[in-house]
């Protein structure tokens, strides 16, 4: 958990996240990520063997969150006519995007 992030790591993670960083953005991100990861390495001090991960507080008995899911029934969604005008490019039926593969 004390791995040092390299420029290659930053570029790889940026690609996974569909973020094309400009070359001048990379040194700062590299520095900040390493500083933050050094800091979070404090968690290594704790022995968490056998501790079940907590993803949602609804799992806690006292939390009072929803324990019952709604019935799985088809219900009307937002009207297409209200949604499509927000799209950058559309024929009002489909979203239009650039080519997926350029030959």
């Amino acid at each position, binding site marked *: 958990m004390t791995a040092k992030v390299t420029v290659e*790591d930053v570029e790889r993670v940026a690609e996974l*996240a569909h*973020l094309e960083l400009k070359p001048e953005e990379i040194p700062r991100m590299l520095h900040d990520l390493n500083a933050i990861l050094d800091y979070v390495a404090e968690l290594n001090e704790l022995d*968490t063997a056998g501790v079940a991960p907590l993803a*949602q507080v609804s799992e*806690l008995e006292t939390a*009072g969150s929803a324990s019952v*899911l709604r019935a799985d029934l088809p219900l009307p969604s937002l009207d297409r006519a209200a949604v499509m005008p927000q799209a950058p490019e559309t024929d009002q039926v489909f979203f239009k*995007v650039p080519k*997926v593969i350029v030959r």
Partner: protein
Amino acid sequence: MPSETKAAETYVQKPKTLAELRAAIASGSTKATELADRYYDRIEAVNSRLNVYLSLTKERALAQAAKVDALAAKGDPLPPLAGIPVGIKDVLVMKGAPATAGSKILEGYRPPYDATAVAKLEAAGAVLLGKLNCDEFAMGSSTENSAYGPVRNPVDTERVPGGSSGGSAAAVAANLAVATLGSDTGGSIRQPASFCGVVGVLPTYGRVSRYGLIAFASSLDRVGPFAANVRDAATMLGVIAGHDPKDATSSSAPAPDYAAESDKPAEGLCIGVPSEYFAEGLDAEVRAAIEKGIAALKAAGCTVKPVSLPHTKYAVPTYYLIATAEASANLARFDGVRYGYRSPSSETLSAMYSHSRDEGFGAEVKRRILLGTYALSAGYYDAYYLKAQQVRRLLAEEFLRAFAEVDAIVTPTAPMPAFKLGEKTGDPLAMYLADIYTVTASLAGICGVTVPCGATKAGLPVGMQVLAAHLNEGTAFRVARAVEAMGL
């Protein structure tokens, strides 16, 4: 040495209480439409300096105010927020109104529906004035990460209002709304309430619907109110709380009358004070103010006893791993396809995604997406994300053990008063540490209230954080009310 810098201006003005305004509107001595106009006049006069509102929803507000006036003229009973001018943090959607989340990537977006909390406010008669500035996607502790410029603290315009709901806190402090809505993922309601000297509420996770809240970290995100006093904040929570089938994590527990709960005396309550929140790094003046608040609670008939929350120091690293991991997934939806910004010239779909996101997101959002993606990526998932979720359970269980012994826990809300604009923007880690006392309750899902608790010698507000167990908002309000009553 004489300073050439102009003395910091102050824009603090206390709004009238909900009870006063309601009585005036019911009697006809104040018209809701005139009240809305007065608020718009004040916004017009000072918003260019404070940058609190990003957009105004005047037409909708005045139509709603006219409806309230018609009800009042007929002598009909008025709903609880009839004619009350309210502002909405720009991460909650209002049908047809701009919703930027403080980001360029959503510039021009006009959502086709209302958030549940927004719809509930309007059904209760509130007049919704407009959308309030915040850190981009609610990521920040100073509102300096807004793509639309920082908010200035009405107490001292050279200082930040806190964040991420800086606009919501500043609006109440400067009387640009009587009450507002914000969102709190790691402290984004409580910390700005502390910096601006107003009341801010973190409801229990699931207490208020997240439907229509632009998601940051879904297992942590809460919607909650700001107001100028505890009772009004409790009234606001009473309006927006309750089950919503549109939010799968919404609690089905009935919501009590929080305003009535807040009227009950705090006498006899047992208050826990965790030494971990008074350790190194706490500003001496903040400590002194909070200690006065604790003395006031003793004077009000509360029992005060020490409690131990030994995992507190692990909360910030745990929070930043979980919140960024969830954010990296949630923010994947901003891809230039269905809404928001699309980079104009890309050959391929993949390039369009990357260019749109690179041009649309600010530096802090990118930093958090990268950190979250890294923590979730193959080879690192167990060491970072899973580890953080395990520590999250330890932190939550520690609170539950403490609440078996005490009714509420009081702490400083933030380790320092409002800092200067630009003071922490160069160091993300220093900024994250402004959340050191608030992220714990976020991870545990418990509720809390920040209440003004004195000030520093320079006049900067100090907030006390009152935490209570899941669904025990009423207890937190009672304690906050007792602190407020001492007029510190």
